[in-house]
């Protein structure tokens, strides 16, 4: 009685064991509404991470399994879409209810398979799964009203990781089904069991055969899914390394892609924070799920003046963490998912220590050799590998900062951009910091909060796309007109006709970089002829150095993203005004270069002016949202500029194509490096004179003329460029997607299809604004 020990408090696992036994502890794939044994008798084992006990044999998916699943999904998709949102809502509702009804067995299975504490699977994972299906029941119900003119993408291949097996399944499957898609899900090799149990839940819910298919297996099974030609979209959550491979492999395939990848999320503690609560926040940030969380707050940034005191508090808290059997209701941390992962964590920490870091581990007796203690690394710097790279384990790196500006700089000094946590009692300070962080999610005075109503996802090497909320639904839909787009016709450059001489003085167009007209670095120019073959002038042949200079200028123009929308609108109106003043001149020029009729040339100019007006209008109206998750507080979904966008304009409609891309980007606060129509570049070079007279801040718009695809390759390979928009050839689209893989840029390419920029629906509006922005969700609980 004196010791006041907690004692064991094990959760009962008999129902889970009975379920496994009912399948003879052996599972095939779930394809087209029935179980299919592994065809070649190939099975691998699923283990209980705490002990290594074998739970079941899991089928190793082969190419023909994947093929059968894709066929089933493809066959089922039209009918599933045909049901309509309201019809599908009934099924999603049934799934939500059934997840709740089976919540205990799902929680126990999850803990057995993954090793996470039963508290987490019971109180966090499974309730969030049910919540996700409820929320998306609603999106299905409202689909036709809220997303008119959008259609499902089709057949979706979904690959999920082992850290939140069923929750990631829900994040993938719920929006996909709500929008009318059918899916093939590949669970992670370590953790297939809850996905397999979910198949039975789908049967109970009466989900039609082929709508949900689960093919188990390792990375090779996932690769089959990624490469399958009949898969229309891949949604992947996992490591940045695999995400990059998927980006490369799907390049040019026309597959839509969303990637939720790694992170090294900062946890920023200011000196006016509630320090005890911040310490508890760290427990939820880095010791939640043994730190095996993509958005784990693994980089502690603490204000220097309170650092010693804060670290002492943290160490004291760490000593109270309990490690043990994850089925025990009284433990904080379970085992690491697999000895392979444990070895990786150990190696990274050891390397950190040999690089000079100081390691402090809570003096906790480990319950076995499959566990890793809660760990703190100090004496590290932004240059340390343990600070830069994801450890994916219960290891926190701590650094100090002096000022809010330095905190932001340190926080953003990362290849990743997933999440951040900010601790301060000052609303001024926290709401100043949150928008400055280059991440997809910010938690103010809280951490690792998730809800179906608020989008989750990152930027930079943390991937692109959002899951949850309205923003997440767009990942599983496409505009109806995309289904009708035809391949672009090839455009031949105008050629010189003999004996036709240039009229008037020689005009040599230049690049437009940093608000200045600059000569091409290479010192070479190309002649441009009218459609009639008259020499119209010369344009510079841009090279990689011109691109480098243009990106540099755009980088320096970062003030544009912070300027107020009213100001951006003013400038867009002013561009329109100045273009309007020279409308007839632009019309003549377009006519001469492209050979279109006077009426069509004038029309192009008029639509361009109108489009500038539209985006001036949008500048202060493309508002974010306030999401309503279950929380006393607000979640602000802010539309933030993507950053620096490299753009290849369409070859035809040289003015309208340029304006259609540049204006939405500027309206939302981006800076752009534009490669204008290669065939008719002189319109763009005339246009920079309009820019020059319109108060556009230097570096906001930069133009480099020359060989489109060569220049775009340089942009796609430039690490400082955040996104690429490309409206050129199919081959060019493929290259852009492949080259963007290295830094995981968000891309928007046309796959060689023709977009009708003069049509209102295809040429302007929310679709463009969505590509020009990233949604950042800022969680702000409040209450005195």
């Amino acid at each position, binding site marked *: 009685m004196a010791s006041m020990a907690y004692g064991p408090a094990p959760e009962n696992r008999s129902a889970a064991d009975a379920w496994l036994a009912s399948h003879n502890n052996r599972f095939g794939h779930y394809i087209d509404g029935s179980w299919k044994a592994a065809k070649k008798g190939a099975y691998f084992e699923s283990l209980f991470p705490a002990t290594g006990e074998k739970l079941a044999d899991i089928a190793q998916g082969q190419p023909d399994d994947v093929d059968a699943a894709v066929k089933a999904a493809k066959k089922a998709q039209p009918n599933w879409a045909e049901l309509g949102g309201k019809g599908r809502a009934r099924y999603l509702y049934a799934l939500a209810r059934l997840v709740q009804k089976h919540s205990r067995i799902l929680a126990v299975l999850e803990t057995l398979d993954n090793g996470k504490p039963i508290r987490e699977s019971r109180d966090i994972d499974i309730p969030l799964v049910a919540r996700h299906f409820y929320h998306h029941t609603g999106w299905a119900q409202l689909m036709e009203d809220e997303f008119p003119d959008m259609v499902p993408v089709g057949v979706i291949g979904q690959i999920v990781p082992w850290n939140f097996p069923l929750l990631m399944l829900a994040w993938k499957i719920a929006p996909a089904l709500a929008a009318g898609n059918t899916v093939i899900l590949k669970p992670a090799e370590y953790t297939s069991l809850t996905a397999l149990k979910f198949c039975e839940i789908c049967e109970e819910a009466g989900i039609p055969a082929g709508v949900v298919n689960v093919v188990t297996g390792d990375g090779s099974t996932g690769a089959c899914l990624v490469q399958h030609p009949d898969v229309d979209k891949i949604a992947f959550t996992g490591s940045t390394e695999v995400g990059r491979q998927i980006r490369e492999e799907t390049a040019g395939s026309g597959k839509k892609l969303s990637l939720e990848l790694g992170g090294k999320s900062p946890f920023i503690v200011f000196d006016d924070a*509630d*320090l005890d609560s911040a310490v508890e926040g760290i427990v939820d940030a880095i010791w939640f799920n043994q730190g095996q969380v993509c958005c784990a707050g693994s980089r502690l940034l603490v204000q220097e003046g309170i*650092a010693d005191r804060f670290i002492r508090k943290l160490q004291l808290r760490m*000593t109270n963490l309990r490690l043990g059997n994850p089925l025990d209701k*009284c433990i904080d941390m379970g085992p690491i998912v697999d000895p392979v992962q444990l070895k990786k964590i150990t190696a990274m920490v050891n390397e950190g220590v040999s690089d000079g870091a100081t390691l402090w581990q809570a003096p906790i007796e480990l319950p076995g050799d499959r566990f890793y203690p809660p760990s703190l690394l100090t004496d590290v710097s932004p240059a340390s590998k343990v600070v830069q790279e994801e450890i994916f384990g219960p290891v926190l790196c701590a650094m100090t900062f002096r000022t809010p500006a330095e905190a932001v700089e340190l926080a953003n000094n990362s290849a990743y951009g997933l999440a951040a946590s900010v601790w301060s009692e000052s609303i001024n300070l926290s709401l100043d910091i949150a928008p400055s962080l280059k991440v997809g999610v910010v938690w103010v005075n809280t951490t690792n909060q998730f809800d179906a109503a608020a989008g989750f996802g990152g930027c930079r090497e943390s991937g692109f796309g959002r899951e949850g909320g309205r923003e997440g639904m767009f990942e599983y839909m496409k505009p109806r007109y995309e289904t009708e787009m035809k391949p672009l016709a090839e455009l031949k450059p105008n050629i010189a006709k003999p004996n036709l001489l240039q009229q008037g003085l020689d005009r040599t167009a230049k690049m437009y970089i940093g608000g200045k007209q600059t000569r091409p670095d290479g010192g070479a120019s190309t002649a441009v002829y009218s459609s009639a073959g008259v020499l119209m002038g010369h344009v510079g042949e841009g090279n990689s150095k011109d691109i480098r200079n243009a990106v540099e200028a755009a980088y320096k123009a970062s003030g544009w993203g912070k300027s107020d929308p009213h100001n951006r609108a003013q400038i867009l109106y002013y561009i329109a005004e100045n273009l309007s003043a020279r409308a007839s001149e632009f019309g003549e020029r377009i006519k001469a270069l492209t050979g279109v009729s006077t009426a069509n040339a004038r029309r192009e100019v008029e639509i361009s002016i109108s489009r500038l007006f539209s985006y001036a209008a949008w500048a202060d109206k493309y508002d974010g949202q306030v999401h309503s998750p279950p929380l006393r507080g607000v979640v602000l979904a802010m539309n933030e500029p993507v950053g620096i966008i490299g753009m290849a304009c369409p070859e035809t409609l040289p003015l309208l194509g340029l304006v259609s891309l540049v204006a939405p980007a500027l309206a939302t606060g981006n800076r752009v490096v534009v490669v204008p129509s290669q065939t008719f570049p002189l319109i763009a070079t005339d246009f920079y004179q309009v820019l020059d007279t319109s108060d556009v801040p230097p570096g906001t718009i930069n133009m480099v003329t020359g060989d489109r695809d060569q220049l775009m390759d340089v942009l796609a390979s430039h690490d400082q460029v955040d996104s690429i928009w490309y409206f050129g050839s199919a081959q060019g689209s493929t290259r852009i997607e492949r080259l963007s893989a290295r830094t995981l840029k968000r891309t928007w390419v046309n796959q060689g299809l023709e977009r009708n920029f003069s049509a209102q629906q295809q040429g302007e509006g929310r679709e463009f604004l969505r590509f020009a922005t990233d949604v950042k969700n800022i969680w702000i609980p409040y*209450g005195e």
Partner: protein
Amino acid sequence: MNVTRADIKSFDTVARNPGLDFDLDWVYSVAVNRSAVERRAKTLPGRRSVKKQWQAAWLLKAVRCIDLTTLSGDDTPGRVKRLCAKARSPVRADILSALGLADASFHTGAVCVYHNMIATAQEALAGTDIPIATVSTGFPAGQTPFELKIMEIERSVTAGAHEIDIVISRELALTGNWSALYEEVKAYRKACGNAHLKTILATGELMTLRNVARASIVCMMAGADFIKTSTGKEPVNATLPVALVMTRMIREYWDRTGYAIGFKPAGGISSARDVLQYQFLIREELGPRWLEPDLFRVGASSLLSDIERQLEHNVSGSYAAYHRLAMG
């Protein structure tokens, strides 16, 4: 960063808190984030669980920390005697003996009565070392003249109370007059002499957690031996978020001064499950030393019978009926 191995001190006897000079900077530097505190309080019961003989041990410890209380207008000597009898043998003998505690001196932490019942309690508790606690200073509202409050304390101490549960003037906290609150509590402490001072913050009337944190610090600075949540008469009594804030302030005071202050939640804690949650919270935030009766009390009237039922279930495997357990 200066990193040292976190040191958890252990100690046997609690040195009495002499109080500190008033330090407004400390009072104002206190930061409490309500949502974060609530998240911790909400998830804590899911993080800790005790079963079987371990649970019995925790509940027996809780019994030893109960200030068995009656504070009603209709209290009579008969009622108080019955309460004291229950305090002397809080758990039925056969249950105790099944738990292996037949011979131990086993009683509640104290009995807590109004001043007029001190003499009765003294008589009823003769021969035991059960302390008598009494409420004071115009309990529960504290809206009586200051001189009378001091006199009330002195009279109770003279009458033989070992522990004085005072109420703070909420007005001083609500208007931010922290130095006046400090002076008030310091005067109470002086009036207590050797009797222990428990300061009731009436957290349900302070409303905000920041006020709770500041009032906790001020009371400890002024020499409180215990800080206590509630009178049991406010619309909202002890809650886990309030307890979390108060225990964190106790930890802060301990960290800065080396003096261990006790904690007493009171009001609305009526089930074994409830009290276990407070025990978990204290063990996690302050450590097991704070679960002993010299640093933890729980003010309750109906809690004991639920614990006793739970203990009987623990011993027999079947659920108990109230009429088979002795009334308090």
